[in-house]
């Protein structure tokens, strides 16, 4: 499939955009990236036209038709290009995967945000809540290599993208996920070895510097 048919309206640091890029790479699809400098400048006309409701990246444009919201996009990619599959085959296992996808979307990024947005006691509470969530996910993973079982699937894609911000949380909160959740950390390492992840995941130090800039912008130093 030619590059011109798949376009992603992107932001290098966004873990949600990362999900889409990893998904496309896993399917062996070529795509064009168009970087939006959302926080630093005006939103492009294309973004405003493609995602009038949320005005946010990522947006996938497939043959010019926009799809918004990262989880919706990854499901779309899976529906449209079934191989390799991101979901298991039985409806019950698919439901379990969707349950964890929903949990990941509801909990992880906000909990991480509470860490860099707070200080002192509030931050300690935020770190505790964050670790609890990661522990819950570690329990959900069990003894499997991936959340998708033997294969890297929907939830591996969703979650590994969010871990791109973990180094920043760890640095701001002065803690290490590995100390509390070693199995989860092993899963991070396993996923990071995949070319689809290593080729697109941003440099953790650069993410940290970006979050530092956000703190300054919001007066949260």
């Amino acid at each position: 499939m030619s590059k011109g048919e798949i376009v992603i309206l992107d932001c290098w640091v966004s873990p949600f955009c990362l999900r889409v890029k990893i998904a496309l790479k896993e399917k062996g699809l070529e795509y064009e990236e168009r970087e939006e400098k959302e926080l630093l400048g005006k939103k492009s006309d294309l973004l405003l036209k493609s995602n009038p409701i949320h005005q946010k990246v990522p947006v996938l444009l497939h043959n010019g038709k926009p799809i918004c919201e990262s989880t919706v996009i990854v499901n779309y990619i899976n529906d449209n290009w079934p191989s390799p599959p991101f979901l298991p085959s039985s409806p019950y296992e698919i439901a379990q995967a969707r349950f964890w996808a929903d949990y990941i979307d509801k909990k992880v990024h906000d909990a991480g945000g509470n860490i860099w947005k707070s200080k002192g006691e509030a931050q300690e509470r935020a770190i505790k809540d964050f670790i609890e969530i990661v522990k819950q996910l570690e329990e959900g993973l069990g003894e499997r290599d991936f959340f998708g079982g033997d294969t890297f699937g929907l939830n591996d894609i969703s979650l590994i993208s969010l871990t791109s911000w973990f180094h920043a949380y760890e640095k701001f909160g002065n803690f290490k996920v590995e100390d509390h959740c070693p199995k989860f950390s092993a899963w991070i390492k396993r996923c990071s070895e995949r070319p689809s992840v290593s080729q697109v995941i941003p440099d953790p130090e650069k993410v940290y510097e970006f979050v530092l800039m956000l703190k300054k912008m919001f007066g949260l130093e």
Partner: protein
Amino acid sequence: MEEGVKVVGFWPSPYSQKVIWALKQKGVAYDYIEEDLSNKSQLLMKSNPVYKKIPVLLHGGKPIAESSVILEYIEETWPQNPLLPKEAYERASARFWIQFGAEKGPTFGSLFTSTAGEEQDKAAKDALEVLKILEEQGLGNNKFFGGDSINLVDLALGWLAHWFQCIEELVEIKLIEPTTLPRLHAWVENFNQVPVIHENLPDKKRLLAHMKSIREMSISAK
């Protein structure tokens, strides 16, 4: 012979009702178990250990939690009377609107617990904006969000056709009116006339009394 299907629900919950609507629409037989949320059962705690919330669907003893996940499971397991488009782009569009509806829950929650004054004016304004988006961009000129017939989006937003009227009555503000939101207003009427919906709604008076007491508790807890 269908393996046993059970729904663990709570009569005033629109989340539980969505699951019932989907099963009824597909003609799937199920046993209903009413949960006492003030004294949660072992079954609920075991079936949904992460959130300990209703609804939970049990199929052959295996639990599925989270209403949006349950609805997709029902669609995949019982393909008759499809409730999601087959085509990938249209399916993505349906999932977008289901997610939009879920994300905007807190906007309506704020209206529900607001008291007269600036706080309520803002809450009403925010809720109206969401309703306008649903009408103009979600529904468009269609009879239902699913087109000519209801689909999972209609079920996910179905609380607007019955529970929202209780909110409007309690806060004494009418938002879905034929003058302000003609198409959404028509959708409410049409949705309520779908036989499966019409026959499976909690009693309005009882629901209003229940929501009134929840509202009073929330306000006093503020």
